[in-house]
């Protein structure tokens, strides 16, 4: 049993964690009544995707993708004294990190706009609870 679990989950542990986080975030985004909580869910959802990407770029025993000042792969990595093909395995994949820098920035920007919308809604309606907002709108426009 333990061996089976290790085979299915152990090698993919990060991916399982990211799925759990993503499901939590998505659930909160859809089901929560409070708009701010919805946005928290959205942030968790986006962060889960960041975890996925960063997990893609990891290599076992590798160090951060910064070379030394002569352009060599840092010597403390495990594979430094072998050929260039293998030596590259001593440095983590930089591409997912670059992509996620973008995704983080996008997430922050979206969250900022969303919070400002929530604040504007609060200014106009006096509430950030979705059901109260719906009731308010219904009372304004009875025909929908």
């Amino acid at each position, binding site marked *: 049993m333990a061996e089976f679990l290790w085979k299915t989950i152990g*090698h993919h542990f990060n991916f399982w964690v990211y799925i759990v986080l*993503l*499901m939590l975030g998505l659930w909160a985004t859809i089901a929560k009544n409070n708009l701010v909580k919805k946005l928290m869910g959205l942030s968790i959802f986006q962060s889960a995707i960041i975890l996925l990407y960063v997990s893609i770029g990891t290599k076992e025993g590798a160090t951060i*993708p*910064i070379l030394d000042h002569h352009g060599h792969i840092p010597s403390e990595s495990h594979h430094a004294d072998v050929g260039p093909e293998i030596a590259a395995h001593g440095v983590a994949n930089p591409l997912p990190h*670059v992509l996620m*820098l973008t995704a983080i*920035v996008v997430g922050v*920007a979206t969250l*900022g706009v969303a919070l400002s919308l929530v604040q504007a809604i609060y200014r106009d309606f006096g509430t950030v609870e979705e059901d109260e907002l719906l009731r308010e709108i219904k009372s304004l426009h009875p025909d929908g």
Partner: protein
Amino acid sequence: MNAKVSATIAVIITGAVLLYGVADFPDFGDPTSPANAGVEGGAPSASLHFINESYKETKVPNLVTSVLADYRGYDTMFETVVIFAAGLAIFVILRNLRSDDPLPEPLPATEDRFIDGDHQRIIVGTTCRIAIPLVQIFALYVVAHGHHSPGGGFQGGVMLGASFILVALGGNLRDALARLGEDTFMRLASLGILIYAAFGLVPQFLGRNFLDYGVLEKIFLTDGPEMARSHSMLGVEVGVALTVMSIMFAIFANLSSRGEMRGGL
């Protein structure tokens, strides 16, 4: 209740689809996975090219910086545009330009005194006054040293923005706006992207493609296109930092004062 049931169903379906895919994933940390090394029997992946060649091509030891600002510089420019668009969207949504009394506020109301005008501010204010220059110097270091260590325009820009936010938190928003006014930071945000785009545009006038920094060696008088790429990356990082700093502060200023740009907190 209904929303919760449907949400649960949607989430479970999504999770099941995601798990279905995970079964075929390469192992976590596998250096020979397609993303890290390329598909079996195919060409090596782009990331191997970055690790093995990018120092020769750009003379930047930090691979994340060279990929971010050069190989995928077009992405990064639009990443900065995303920030700029967010700043504008927040301005459009929240900013109230029709304030009835545009002059500086009279003395803060009684509740505000504890934060705003009284002796209790001394400790916080003094600490912030000491911390802010240090934060800013470190931010500039992070921007400038992004070639050799973790850092770059986004990180440094956020720190610079945070230093202005600290002014507002330690004192009040009016002090912060006196140092970095609304006109200034909205213009700085455009200026930052303009700097970035200019580094892309100049090569076009020299007969190369957009963002092909290598050709700038004629302007920077460097020995070889690699150093020109390295210098240009610093330039675009400065542009990024300007935009990020301005918009981070803009988001804070708008959200904390509900678009009034006075009082606040």
